[in-house]
Each structure stands twice: as C-alpha cells, then as structure tokens.
C-alpha cells in the first residue's frame, strides 16, 4: 500500500503513452493524452496525502484538525484546468486537420516528411 499509488501513477503514464504510440485516430490520441495527464493528478495527490488527515477546509472542521497537504491540491487544480484547455485546443486542431487532409489516421498523414 505504501507505494501502490505511485506505481499506479506510473502505470497510467505508460499506458497513455502506449495508446498515443499505437493510436490510429487522432481524436483517440487526444483522449490518450488526457489519460497520460491523469497520472500527474494521482501522483501529486498521493504525495500530499497524510494518513488520518482530513481535507484542509475548515468550514466544518476545527482549526486545529490534522489535515492533508493543501498545496498539492492547488497544484492539481491548476493541472486539471491545463488538461481541459489543452484537450480543447488539440481537438480544435483535429477538426481542421480532418477538413484539410480528409483523414484523422496518423498513418495516412505524411505531409511533413523531412
């Protein structure tokens, strides 16, 4: 249990990468990117957890309560916003890509050979 959360985060990261590598559809790839990012949420919150602690919200808890780390929660909030916005932007690009190339299959997009 003491390392399970960290390992799960790593697993999610690698699985997301695997999906990106093997993806045949860019919308699916963007979804995999979102999966990859969720690994960062898990890691950050796991790092900030304190056994027996409660949420650092003192609306309904005594000011002296034993609480978990609020900083990582703030970081994760920012992270989630970043994830949603990046997803939106990439999806917008996919829409235009489909219009111009007629496909969203990366294997068929070979415009940018170097």
């Amino acid at each position, binding site marked *: 249990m003491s390392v399970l959360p960290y390992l799960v985060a790593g697993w999610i990261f690698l699985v997301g*990468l695997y999906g990106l590598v093997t993806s045949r559809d860019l919308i699916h790839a963007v979804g995999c990117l979102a999966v990859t*990012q969720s690994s960062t949420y898990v890691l*950050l919150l796991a790092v900030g957890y304190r056994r027996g602690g409660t949420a650092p919200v003192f609306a309904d808890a005594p000011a002296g309560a034993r609480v978990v780390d609020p900083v990582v929660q703030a*970081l994760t909030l920012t992270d989630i916003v970043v994830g949603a916005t990046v997803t939106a932007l990439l999806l917008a690009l996919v829409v235009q890509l489909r219009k111009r190339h007629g496909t969203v299959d*990366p294997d068929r997009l070979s415009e940018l050979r170097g």
Partner: protein
Amino acid sequence: MSAFPAASALPLVVAVPLLGAAVLAVAGRRLPRVAADAVAVAFAGTAAAGALLAAAGWARGAGGAGGARGSAYAVQWLGGWRPGRGGGTGIAFVGDPLSLGLAALVSLLVIAVLAYSWRYFEEPPLPPGSPGTAGAAGRSGAFPALVLLFQASMSGFCLTGDLFDAFVFFELMGVVAYALTGLRVEEPRPVHGALAFGVVNSLGGYALLLGIGLLYARTGELGLAQLGRRLDHGGGPDALVLAAFVLVTAGLLVKAAAVPFHFWLPDAHAVAPTPVCLLLSGVMVELGAYGAFRVYWTVFAGSGGVPPEAATRTFLTVGVLTALLGAVMCWRQRHLKRLLAFSTVAHGGLFAVGAGVLSADGTAGTALYVLAHAGVKAALFACTGILLDRYASVDEHRLYGRARELPLVGGMFLLGGLALCGLPPFGTSLGKAIAEEAAGRQLPWLTGVFVLVSALTGGAVLRAGLRVFAGVGPRPRATAAETAGTERTHTGARNRDRGTDRHRERDPDRGRDGVDGGAERTPGDEVPETGGPLRRIPATMLLVPAALLAAALAVGLVPQLAAAAGRAGRLFAAHGPYAAAVLDGRAAHGSSPPAVGWTGTGAALGLASTALGAGLALLAVRGPLPEALDRVLGPLRRLQSGHIGDYVAWTTAGLALLAALAAPGTVLGR
C-alpha cells in the same frame, strides 16, 4: 516603494502584456487594424521598458532592493509572502542578469515581430456576415493578442523562481504557440504541424510535472532555492533524485528541441507563420535550454543533487547529438524554413554543449551566443518571409535566381549566413568563441564540433542564398529520389491546393508549382501570408531584419555586454549564492567573474568556420550531393516522418536515454 525600478517591476513585465491581450481580445474587433497593432506595440513596449529598466536597475547594483539588498539578484516575493523561518509559502520572481536579459530579449523580439507584421500580416479573414464565434475569429485583434500572451508567458518563464510556476508558464507558452502555429487553418500542413507540436510538448509538460511531484515528495518544497537547500540536507543522491532530474530535464529539453525530442520543431517551424517563426526560433527554443540549466544549477548542483560529471555527461552527449543531427539535416533541406528550423536545432545543441560544461565562462559565452543567434536567426526568417510573400515559395531550387531583383534582401540573407558561420565581429562569433574555448578545455574535440556545426548550418544558408539571390551555379536538377517524391506527393499537392482557392486566383501559376512542389516531400509552394503575392516590399519588412542584424553585430562589438555576460554567467552558474540571496537576502559573494572577450584563437576559429562554410556552399552550388552520400543520409531523413506515434515513441526513448546517461555515478557505481 523605494526599490520600485528593479525588483517590483518584475511581475509587471508579465502583467502588462496580459492586460494588453485582454484589451485587444475585446477591442480588437472594433478597432481598425492599425490601431490594434499600435495598441499591441504600446503594451509590448511598456513591458520591454520594464524589463530593460529592471536590467538597468540591476546594472546599477540596486537590483536586490526588493529582496536582498546589495545582492546581484533582484528578488520579488509575489503577494509580499517573504519567507519567515522555513521556506515561505509564496512565489519569488528572481531577476538575475541572465533572466532579465532574456526577458528583455523576449520583449524586444516581440516588438520586432509586431513591427514586421505591421499592417501586412494577413489576419484570419472575416467571413461575411458570420455571427458570434466565426465572426470573432476574423477580428484583427486575435493575432497581436496571442503574441502578447506569448510574450507574457516567456517573460514569466524567465523570471519565476518557482518550479511549478515555471511549469504553468511552460504550458501557457505551449498553448499560445500551438494556436499561433496552426493560425492558417486554410492550409493542411499548419494544422498538422501544430498538432504534432502540441502533443509532444504536452507530453514534455507532463513529464516535467511528474518530476515536480517526485521532488515535492522528497523535499516538500516548490521554490527552486528551497528545493536545492532541502536536497542538500537530504544527503547523497538516490534513484528518486535521479528520476526527478530525468523527468524535469526531459520536459524542458522537449521545449529546447534536443535530440530525440526535436521532431516537433521543424514540422512546426516549416508551417508556422513567419512572424511566429521569429519568436519560436529566436527565443522560445532557447528558453527550454535556459530552464533546464536554471533548474540544474539551482536544484541539482548541490551535494544532494546529481553529481556534476553525470550531469555534464548527459548534457554534452545530448548536445553533441543534437548539434550534429541538426547540422546534417539542415544541410539536406531545400525548403528554406525547414532549413532554418534545423539550423535552430543544431545551434540549440551547441548551446547545450556550451552551458553543459558547467562552467561560468561556458555559460557566459552561451548567453552571448543565444543573444546574437536570436538576432541573426530572426533576421534570416524575416528575409525568408519576404521571399515567401513575394514568390509564394520558399523552395531553394524553384527560386533559383528569381530573387536577383532583391539585392538588399539578398545581402542581408548572405550576411546572416556568414554570421551563422561565426564571422567576426558578429556576436555569434564571440559567443561561439567563448563557449567553444570553455568546451575545449573539457574535451578538446568539442571545439571541432562547434566549428563543423556552425560551418554546416551557415554554409547551408549561404548555399541557399547564393542560389536564390544570385543564381550562382547551374540550375539544380531534381535527383532520382526527388522525382520519386514528386510522384508520391502528386495527389497530396492537389489535396493541398483545395483549401486555398482564393489564393490561387491571385496567383495563377500556383497550380503547376503545387504539383512539382512535391519534391523532397516538403513541397515549396506556399501561400503568401500577405494575402496575395507582394509586389512592393514594405519598408518595415526590410527595416526589421536590418535592425536585427545590427543588434547581432552590436552584441559582438559592445564590450560592456560581454562583461555583463561574464557576471551573468557567474551568477547563473551558482548554487549556494542563489539560495542565499533568495531565501536569506544575503548578498551573493561569488568568485570574480570570468574575463570574457575576444581572443586571437577565437577570432581565428571563427574565420576558419566561416571559410569552411563558404567553401562548402560554393562546392554545393556546383552540383547536387553524390548519390552515395544521399543514400547514407536517407534513413536520417526518414526519421522525420511527421507521424505523431513516431514522435511519442522517440520522446519515450529520449526519457530512457537521459536515465541511462545520468545513472552512472548517481546511483550506479557509488
């Protein structure tokens, strides 16, 4: 506030462009184009003034007034969250000469870009009578607003002294850059390039964030200074520190386009609008390297971090690989924008080498090199943009001799090529000389790498310039491979034309161009960004590259700059003093700055690389490369497949590579 100029101006350098962007996003639609541009320039100029003011305040030595009085670091704790005992809970903006200089460079380059695109750069066209969303797209404020956001993000990335805050600005930089790269959605390739750019850079950001998480788990801190301190108290490095180092460095090196994270860069640069290329190539890529070394010095350089030999091994290996691959690929290109993009990759490698020897003078030289390179590379892109808008093509072969009528542009282009080779007294030459001397002391053969790479990249530019602007040598013939390429991309070219009918009306012969543009699989036929080919070159488009080249020259000629770079290098390549200044407000008492300036050997090496580059160029214009060489380089070129899956696989491989490079001496064999 007494200390206003120096320290308190730091956050405003970021905030002012944000205000400008917000204003433009709304007012831009109602303003005429000129007014929108004027507003943008005004805001960018204010921020630039702030950055320069802060830099000047630092030069006066009053820099630390915001935080550490008398210290050479201007420290500003946002929200006034000064650290009590412990590390404090706020975010610090730290202005040391290097970060302030980079912030100033960013702002000045943004002004140059806005001037370059002054009233000419074709905005996303406004579809007639389209409501809300579509109409909003056509407004004339969108482009300058995005540029201002770009400026804010890059300045913030330079100035922040907090690792997670750096990640936020890293992502902001990315988001703006993806949008700017894909700005011309009427064409197929920009969207594709922007998507590859977006996916790879986002992965880099997530790797960076995982690294931040690991560091936080170990130290429970986020500020660079605090992180460094806690690591040093924690005892020797272990696998955790190594993993954090690998993840963080990889994330930042993705932005720096180091091998094998570099694939996105040529794809993005080749298709991004020219004014955007100025920013991407001029400073954004360099910021990636800046971040990597900033984090190394402040966090990992101590006793608890990564041992110097492991770090320098990592940086030097990656840097040399990047420089060589970039140079070779650059030489192979005939699509001018891709050529310049690969030269940026190559020089990024040189920067990694120069700063990777982890010495003050190496850092100082690299700083000068970056400064001058920004000017030169931006000028070259500006000239290419003129070609693009005049001839609707940036293909070296198709433009053969056509640009004889532009002697001024040609002169600037060739001058830029020479400066890229390292011709004294350009700043590129000075920076290269100092950096390669520092590197040569570590490993003698690194000097050869500097000479060879700058000669190859500069030579490629010279070759293209001679062919395009002077028509030197025989008209290039299509090799077998290229005709095959034509075959392959025939349908692609037709596909490509579809999105751009309105341009074809203006330029009847693009149909043919489009078809044989398939050669080399990077077709040279482009759509002018001015909306229709340019008949007369606006003065601004000529002034900007001229000014940029002059600035690059000045970097080499003004001794004060070199001296400042010396002090900057010492303050940047310092672990303890940084933390002391940021956390305790103690003045930085470092060793005396390295003597930085012209040396005989440096100038000689610069002349040598210039001569080599010119010779290669003259040799190349006589005829195409021998087929054998072509076959050798073929596989290298095929790596640049434009396939997002490939790029992700290479990114993963790069992470593994970094781990393998940094492990010996850190966890293995200790």
